[in-house]
């Protein structure tokens, strides 16, 4: 490969790294050496038109992983490809699919992407490739943005249908008779971004695949599945769990990469006693400003939608003079399609110099030449961190990725132990397709699609029992032919959503002008936090005051406003034990139990926080009905002789600290996103009557996290003790049990004593 002359980005990055002001902030710096490509010969049987098209695009030979994926897929074997961002993963499935259609125009393929934006991107890519190959490929996206007149054409004639699991679930499978040409000839199903199908969403998607297979069998098809995933610890296991079939793993990446610097940045300590560090957001802002000023096209990821909007407004103040708002753009889930498309186009043609995004952009949209990626706050998993870092990077030339640690415990853990980020294996994708809530819903949907013979198994061996339950509930009826038929006048697929327990979104309506205008949507779970009455809802950097939240109608009415604060709501959680599955009394840690619980949460108050200084300038109360979730949990009751030594207040603070450290270390042990693991400490728990620490799956029905954690309780306690003892702070900091102001002056010491007693 030729060495490229140093670009703006190269110089700016070099200058940044050489700046003495930066070095105290850098907790870790790794430099990834450029890597040369490794190629394989063209497969012998591939259609020559496909080869010609790829040659015309400058691909003289496939990378090794592309050739392996082709061999597996065209040989009829399911395959999962795991290689980094921008390694030519798309070709791993486009090559076998296009080849099959070139050889037999009747062949069909179904592509699943987790978002519409990704689907739209892949459509462009696939069309360009097909055109170059002079294969008259009929392909289109099929989702909420597809015009009605195009839909019928796609159904009847689309050779490659590009959609998302939600659409497959709600629109395609229930109407499979309109799609029989697709199902009859379905040769390939492509599931990209497989790692996103974890937890509850993944459990749903696994059931959608069960339904898809039933329909395929009905029409006599047996498609090969081609999956692609970002790096996770168990891609093959996850793929096999979702597909319930053997899957071949391809992870030998043959793609080249340019030099890349990876930084872990820890903002300076702001308050020694509280253990609070400077704002990650502000540090991220300074870094982004510096890079953008140096001509480095930069993307910054923030964890919350509010943070995205705040940072967007800050950067715009710096870079976008009034009247030129388009150099800096915000990008997050709630945006409407045309807004999103404009931002994506601006990124590609370079008009947009900086983007602030939530995880919506984390997924592999091919936006081209980004030079730097800044993750503000640990995104929650190692896999997402690498995904975000992978957004910067070029085949040649230098790129930069930075993780800016927040005060959150897990972030501080990473700053102290960067090896965890660089060397440890990333998370496991855990799913539980047999979660009863999930399974029952999909069994209903599936029996609407095709009657279920009494002998058929849908996921679990107890299927007949579930069918009887659905019959008792009036959904199904077992007829004389021993098949269960849908016997209800509603449409089961519209009763539930794959993405969360909540089926609906709250629509945000701007009433500022003469005519009401829909700004966007937030999901039902996030709505109490974001659009409660008197909240400041920020959309594309513009502040809106929430005048009224109509909870029944799922509508929030807002007007444009301009104030110097934003709002932050507090969540209150209660927990009720419904059923104990198993228990054990093992000294010294204490009694532990596992079972089913009902977790209820309510947003009760919010704080007004001033911009820039981040001081608290007021508060208000919120009246939104309590939300409930039925899930699985495990809990630990420390021995009485340990806890009886302390007064109630001390113990209360210590338990809060213990919960905090348990969540961080629990997430590490399980290798899951800490957000998937809920914790609650009760100094006198109604169920146990004693001080209790609850850990629960933060997903309705549970996805198996606490089931596994139950077996790891002693290990968890030991790891917590190590984390607290090794922390250098005096009496509690966000990296361990939390600041003293939250856990009490003796909080850290008490937690340490408790943990010592529990591991003695």
């Amino acid at each position, binding site marked *: 490969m030729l060495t490229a002359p140093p670009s703006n980005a190269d110089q700016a990055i070099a200058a940044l790294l050489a700046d003495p002001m930066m070095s105290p902030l850098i907790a870790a710096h790794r430099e990834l050496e450029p890597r040369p490509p490794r190629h394989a010969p063209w497969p012998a049987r591939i259609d020559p038109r496909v080869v010609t098209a790829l040659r015309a695009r400058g691909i003289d030979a496939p990378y090794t992983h592309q050739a392996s994926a082709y061999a597996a897929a065209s040989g009829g074997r399911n395959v999962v490809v795991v290689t980094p961002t921008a390694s030519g993963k798309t070709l791993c499935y486009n090559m076998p699919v296009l080849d099959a259609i070139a050889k037999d125009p009747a062949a069909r393929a179904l592509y699943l992407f987790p978002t519409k934006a990704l689907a739209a991107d892949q459509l462009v890519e696939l069309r360009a490739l097909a055109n170059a190959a002079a294969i008259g490929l009929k392909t289109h996206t099929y989702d909420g943005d597809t015009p009605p007149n195009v839909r019928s054409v796609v159904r009847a004639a689309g050779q490659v249908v590009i959609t998302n699991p939600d659409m497959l679930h709600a629109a395609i499978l229930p*109407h499979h008779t309109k799609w029989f040409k697709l199902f009859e000839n379905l040769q390939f199903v492509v599931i990209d971004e497989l790692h996103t199908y974890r937890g509850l969403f993944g459990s749903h998607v696994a059931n959608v695949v069960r339904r898809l297979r039933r329909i395929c069998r009905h029409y006599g098809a047996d498609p090969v599945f081609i999956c692609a995933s970002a790096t996770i610890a168990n891609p093959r296991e996850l793929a096999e769990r979702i597909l319930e079939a053997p899957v071949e793993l391809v992870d030998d990446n043959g793609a080249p990469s340019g030099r890349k610097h990876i930084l872990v940045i820890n903002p300076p300590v702001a308050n020694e006693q509280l253990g609070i560090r400077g704002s990650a957001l502000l540090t991220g802002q300074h870094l982004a400003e510096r890079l953008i000023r140096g001509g480095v096209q930069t993307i910054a990821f923030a964890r919350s939608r509010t943070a995205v909007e705040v940072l967007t407004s800050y950067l715009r103040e710096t870079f976008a003079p009034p009247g030129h708002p388009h150099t800096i753009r915000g990008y997050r889930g709630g945006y409407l399609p045309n807004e999103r498309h404009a931002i994506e186009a601006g990124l590609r043609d370079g008009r947009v110099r900086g983007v602030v995004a939530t995880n919506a952009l984390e997924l592999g949209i091919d936006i081209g030449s980004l030079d730097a990626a800044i993750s503000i706050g640990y995104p929650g998993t190692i896999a997402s961190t690498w995904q975000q870092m992978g957004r910067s990077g070029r085949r040649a030339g230098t790129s930069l990725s930075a993780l800016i640690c927040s005060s959150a415990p897990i972030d501080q853990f990473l700053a102290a132990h960067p090896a965890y980020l660089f060397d440890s294996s990333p998370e496991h994708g855990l799913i539980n397709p047999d979660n009863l809530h999930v399974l029952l819903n999909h069994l209903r949907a599936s029996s*609407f699609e095709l009657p279920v013979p009494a002998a058929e198994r849908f996921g679990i061996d107890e299927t007949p029992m579930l069918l009887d339950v659905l019959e008792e509930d009036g959904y199904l009826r077992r007829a004389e*032919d021993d098949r269960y038929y849908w016997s*209800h006048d509603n*449409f089961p697929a519209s009763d539930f959503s794959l993405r969360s327990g909540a089926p609906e979104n709250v629509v945000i309506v701007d009433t500022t002008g003469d005519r009401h205008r829909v700004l966007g949507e937030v999901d039902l779970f996030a709505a109490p936090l974001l659009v409660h009455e008197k909240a400041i809802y920020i959309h594309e950097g513009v502040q809106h005051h929430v005048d009224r939240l109509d909870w029944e109608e799922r509508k929030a009415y807002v007007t444009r406003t301009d104030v110097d604060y934003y709002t932050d709501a507090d969540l209150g959680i209660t927990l009720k034990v*419904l059923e104990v*599955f198993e228990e054990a009394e093992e000294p010294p840690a204490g009694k532990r139990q596992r079972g089913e619980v009902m977790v209820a949460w309510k947003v009760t108050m919010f704080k007004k926080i001033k911009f820039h200084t981040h001081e608290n300038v007021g508060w208000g109360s919120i009246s939104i009905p309590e939300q409930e979730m039925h899930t699985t949990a495990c809990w630990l009751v420390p021995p009485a002789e340990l806890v009886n030594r302390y007064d109630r207040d001390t113990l209360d603070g210590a338990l809060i600290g213990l919960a905090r450290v348990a969540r961080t270390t629990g997430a590490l042990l399980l290798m899951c996103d800490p957000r998937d693991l809920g914790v609650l400490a009760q100094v006198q728990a109604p169920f146990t009557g004693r001080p209790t620490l609850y850990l629960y799956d933060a997903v309705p029905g549970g996805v198996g996290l606490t089931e596994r954690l139950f077996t790891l309780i002693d290990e968890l306690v030991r790891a917590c003790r190590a984390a607290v003892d090794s922390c250098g702070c005096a009496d509690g900091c966000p990296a361990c049990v939390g600041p003293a102001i939250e856990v009490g002056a003796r909080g850290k010491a008490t937690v340490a004593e408790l943990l010592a007693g529990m591991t003695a």
Partner: protein
Amino acid sequence: MMSRTLADRLAAIRDRAPAPRPARTDDDRLGRLARWFDARTDVTEHGTVLVVERSVAIATETAELLRLHEPAAYFDTETTGLSTGAGTVIFLAGVARLVGGRVTVRQYLLPDYPYEPPLLRAVAADLASSTRIVTYNGRTFDLPMLVARLTVHGLFREQAALPAAHDDLLPDARRLFRRPLGGARLADVESGVLGVRRTSDCPGSEVPTRYFGYLRGGSPDILADVLDHNFQDVVSLVLLEAELCRLRAGGWREAPVLDPRGMALDLLRAGAVDDALELVETAQALTADPAEGNALRRVAARLLIALGQVERAEELWTLATRRASLDAATAWIEVARIRERHRADLRGAMEAAAAASRVLDVAFALGRGGSMAEVGRTRIVVERRLRRLRRWVGAAERRARFAAGPVGRVA
């Protein structure tokens, strides 16, 4: 996870108390149903089909009217839901035909889900023996539904044999009756136009519930109303098609309930331009509402233009210019538009626009102009068109002079 039984866990997450378990169905479900409705049971090689046959006499002149048409199968279905998704089933299909002076109806009734394939084959074969199907909303519902069911069971050959000709009467009924009746459901048309009075009926929303009730062990009697409903639907289809024939054959002249605009469009489609114009003119003469009159004229003019009869369209608007009023100005504008767009007569268009301007002045002076706002709006439209036409006419004339030779070129 297994210390508790699945049944316990199911009970814990279920959102409602279990309903009493339905009694297992009687052994002779089919026989009982057949006896109840006095139905014929056809035993075919693919299974048993239950057919209820009934007929009703209709007026001789009604039957006469339909002689003009190719004979048809009048078709309507009752289903277990309104979604056309794969879980919705046709449990009753009515096929009516005109035989002599009677409408004979075959109703295919589903005794239970497993009997669906033979029922579908029988219905498809019945329909295939005609060359034309007539439905009400069948284009979006009944036919796609039947096709979906045939597809579920892989009955593609049966699907291919369905008649190609399909007349859905809903669009016609909408055009002709929706505005005067305030709705175009078949029930509206029956009571408002066909003079059909239903004695007992079953609301459409209740239909699936009744069938589920029957399946879960209810008496076949709860289906009686549904069968009657379906019977009346297909009979009404026959009457409606006859009524449409009558209207098109000149019956519109005496029709008490009819949307003249819709009827005019209908006649124009059939090529009966003279009748359409007569209708529009009569309606215009009768209507007290000038807005409605103008709307009628607009319909006629547009369709005349579409038919290539530009001169007649112009004539139609010219008739409306006689009395100085705001409407006359509007009519002149239409004349100008027709001359400009369809006759390439810029000068003529300019003259018409100038006439519009004059009429507007007169109307305003006489106080016939309507509100100030309306006059103002019309004034703006007229003046803009007039300015543009003057400019174009001027330019065209200069070009013409120039092309004729450099004689009188003005400096």
